[in-house]
């Protein structure tokens, strides 16, 4: 990714734009929507986990905040769910500060441990708190009262809304990557002590990355709950929500712009396939597969598929990356 857009991105953009018409059945459109949602949340994770190198294993707290608030304002006050999106972002930012402020003074492992502990804490509290639906969860409007409720009959409107959000997330990430903050993030990732000695504001850089990441993850959660019209502690705040973001970003290539999208394009169809082949009991096998993929990635290719491609692909096919 130099300064100019290259042909790979244009081809990918065109492919994503025409996909719902090339594969018009509801099944394929649904997969398309899932891929886009997974790509949005993994790209959001990637800002702090990939670029800044602060590995969160509890991003479900931001996804959950984004997923709960729209349905919460609908359930209690009858507001259009969309109005809950900024509130979800606000809650996510508070959580980011609570987790990030103390742990970013310490070694990287503290942050990882704190994210998983706080995410689990929130899941337990939400699961017993009646105001937010406890274990049963919350529901959105069954029938939209107007266009502003964003309840569409088909997948198509959601597909293009998600695609637009993904575009925004990728553009912002691209800009951040080229900015001073982006260089700071990579410096922190490469070596905190060296970065500090060169005058990089380490703690502020990490916190900025986390807050930006939390914002986008929260938006992804809102998109999810507004589309499905339902959220419960497992689907909004479960550990597997966090796992999916990590694995998709790491599979494609953490710390690269296209990595999360590539990871989502591979993993979501794979997951749909295993669920279809193995039936209802297949979900357990899916997670065994997830665990296996994560272990193999860590052991053999922590840079993900992009790194592998750069090593094995013929020189003329290689994509040049700045990072």
């Amino acid at each position, binding site marked *: 990714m130099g300064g100019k857009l290259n042909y790979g991105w244009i081809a990918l953009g065109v492919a994503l734009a025409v996909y719902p018409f090339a594969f018009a059945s509801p099944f394929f459109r649904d997969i398309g929507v899932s891929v886009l949602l997974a790509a949005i949340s993994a790209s959001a994770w990637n800002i702090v986990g990939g670029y800044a190198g602060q590995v969160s294993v509890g991003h479900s707290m931001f996804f959950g905040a984004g997923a709960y608030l729209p349905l919460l304002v609908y359930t209690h006050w009858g507001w259009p769910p969309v109005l809950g999106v900024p509130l979800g972002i606000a809650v996510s930012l508070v959580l980011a500060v609570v987790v990030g402020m103390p742990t970013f003074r310490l070694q990287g492992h503290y942050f990882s441990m704190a994210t998983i502990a706080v995410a689990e804490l929130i899941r337990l509290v939400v699961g017993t708190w009646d105001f937010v639906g406890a274990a049963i969860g919350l529901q959105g409007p069954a029938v939209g009262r107007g266009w502003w409720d964003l309840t569409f009959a088909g997948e198509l409107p959601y597909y293009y809304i998600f695609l637009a959000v993904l575009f925004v997330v990728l553009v912002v990430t691209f800009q951040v990557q080229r900015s001073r903050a982006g260089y700071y993030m990579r410096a922190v990732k490469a070596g905190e002590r060296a970065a500090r000695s060169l005058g990089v504001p380490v703690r502020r850089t990490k916190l900025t990355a986390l807050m930006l990441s939390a914002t986008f993850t929260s938006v992804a959660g809102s998109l999810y709950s507004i589309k499905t019209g339902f959220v419960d502690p497992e689907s909004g705040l479960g550990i597997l929500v966090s796992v999916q973001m990590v694995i998709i970003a790491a599979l494609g290539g953490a710390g690269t712009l296209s990595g999360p999208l590539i990871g989502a394009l591979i993993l979501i169809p794979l997951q749909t396939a295993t669920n279809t082949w193995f039936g209802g009991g297949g979900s357990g096998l899916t997670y065994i597969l997830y665990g296996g993929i994560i272990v193999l990635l860590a052991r053999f290719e*922590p840079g993900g598929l992009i790194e592998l491609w750069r090593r094995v692909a013929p020189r003329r096919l290689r994509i040049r990356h700045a990072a």
Partner: protein
Amino acid sequence: MLLLQVIVGGLLLGAIYALFSSGLTLIWGMMNFINFAHGEFVMLGMYVALLVVTWLAGGPAAFGFAAAFALFVLGVAVYAGLIRHVMRGPMLAQILSTFGLALLLRYTAFFIFSANVVSLPPTALSGTIDAGGILVSLPQLVAGVTAALLTLAMHLLLTRTTVGSQLLAVAEDRSAAMLMGIRPDRMQALAWGLAAASAGIAGALMATSYPWSPSVGETFGLTAFVVVTLGGFGSVPGAMYAGLIVGLIQSLSAYYLGPIYKDVVVYGLFVALLWLRPQGLMGKA
């Protein structure tokens, strides 16, 4: 009297927390590495105990040793096959390696043993004793005391034996230890074996009095993080005190607030610790 009983129960459970947390803190002290699969090691220890009791009709001593041995082997294998290759790599690889391992072990256990809650059939240790009005179940008492003794043994092993000195030497300075004729790789493999074995025995001990399912590993793993943070990373005596404190806090909050809040209070304590005293009670900042 009931309160006193709650306190005794909390301390006995806390001794078991201390035992498996001492394994986690040992690994941290040796190589600055956090094992996200530690709770899953505890969970596997519980299933090893169950298998030994149901298939081999083994008694408490038999399944205790079996769990320790099986997990020791697993710990060494995990070190040799995975950790050794990622510990010098990027942070992402370090965290993903054991995080992925945790998922793999947890969901493989779901696949093999199903999500049902199981408990150990009554063993030779069943029964309750009455100590001046305080009722303590015999398996809980034996498990707690055994765990406390084993944690102490771990501390003595590290501080009073040659092997312990070698382990600490590697922790202190890997290259210097190598110059003294110590093989760091072997010592780190031993540390992983010991850590996993401590988790395995702790699991077997807990299996005698608490029902469980494959998902307990996550709870125990997080509990171990809290204990190790409270005690100070790398400190086995710290883990010992902190384990008892966390066990006590947990049973008191279950008593006063209700059982569903016991983990909430402990994780909340963790967040408070990170803000107020991240180096823990006995840790060096």
